[in-house]
């Protein structure tokens, strides 16, 4: 059997890939997708831990996380649309009206 730490480390790697994506990409939609990747990495942890502890809490949490992700996506994409309409861009580098 694979020890729990394998799952957790895999989850950590995926999470970091998500984080790196957020830092790396300029397109805010991809940034957003990277965030989704982070959430999924966490989900992996939850599911693995649920299996490890043998209680359902982890799985139920994943259920809630999915709802949250859905809500975030709805609002997030609406915001991206809003911004795109105003600025004609989804490049994060160009969205700096306010600074300093």
């Amino acid at each position, binding site marked *: 059997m694979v020890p729990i730490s394998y799952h957790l480390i895999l989850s950590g790697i995926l999470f970091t890939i998500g984080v790196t994506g957020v830092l*790396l990409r300029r397109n805010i939609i991809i940034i957003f997708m990277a965030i989704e990747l982070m959430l999924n990495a966490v989900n992996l942890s939850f*599911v693995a831990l649920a299996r490890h*502890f043998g209680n359902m809490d982890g799985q139920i949490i994943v259920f809630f996380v999915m709802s949250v992700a859905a*809500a975030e996506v709805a609002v997030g994409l609406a915001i991206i649309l809003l911004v795109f309409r105003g600025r004609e861009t989804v490049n994060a580098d160009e969205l700096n009206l306010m600074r300093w």
Partner: protein
Amino acid sequence: MDFVTFFALAIPLVVIAIMVIAHPSPVYSALFLVLTLFLLAVYFLFLDAHVVAALQIIVYAGAIMVLFLFVIMLLNLQSDTQPTPRHGLGRAAIIGGVILVAELGLLLQRSSSEQAESSLPENFGTVEALGSQLFTTYLLPFEITGILLLVAVVGAVVLAKR
């Protein structure tokens, strides 16, 4: 889950996840993400999370990712936006990512508990188990999720309508 299965799933997962953030085209990124989500669903199956695996495909890969693709198409974004100088941000991102993963790995490695996995209850991961928990213990959070989604809907409408 045995080691073979684990690595058979984990290695493609990581590679594809890297592709998500590395591929210049948003559409491909999204498709790679869908792939990641599918792989995860498979992974969940091996972890006895049947319902979650199903939800992962239906909700995530199905609904959410479609929304993403829809927006990408709507905005007509074929490739990553025109290159602008990154001021070392990209390098910092990768260095940061490496450090972060190293730290996470080290800390998680330390926490590898020797304790054996608990024996699973009979109906672990089934719709029944999930449902009964959801409507008893997690009743109130479940209700609040309703409000959360309501907010999201209202918000999306408020923001996106012309």
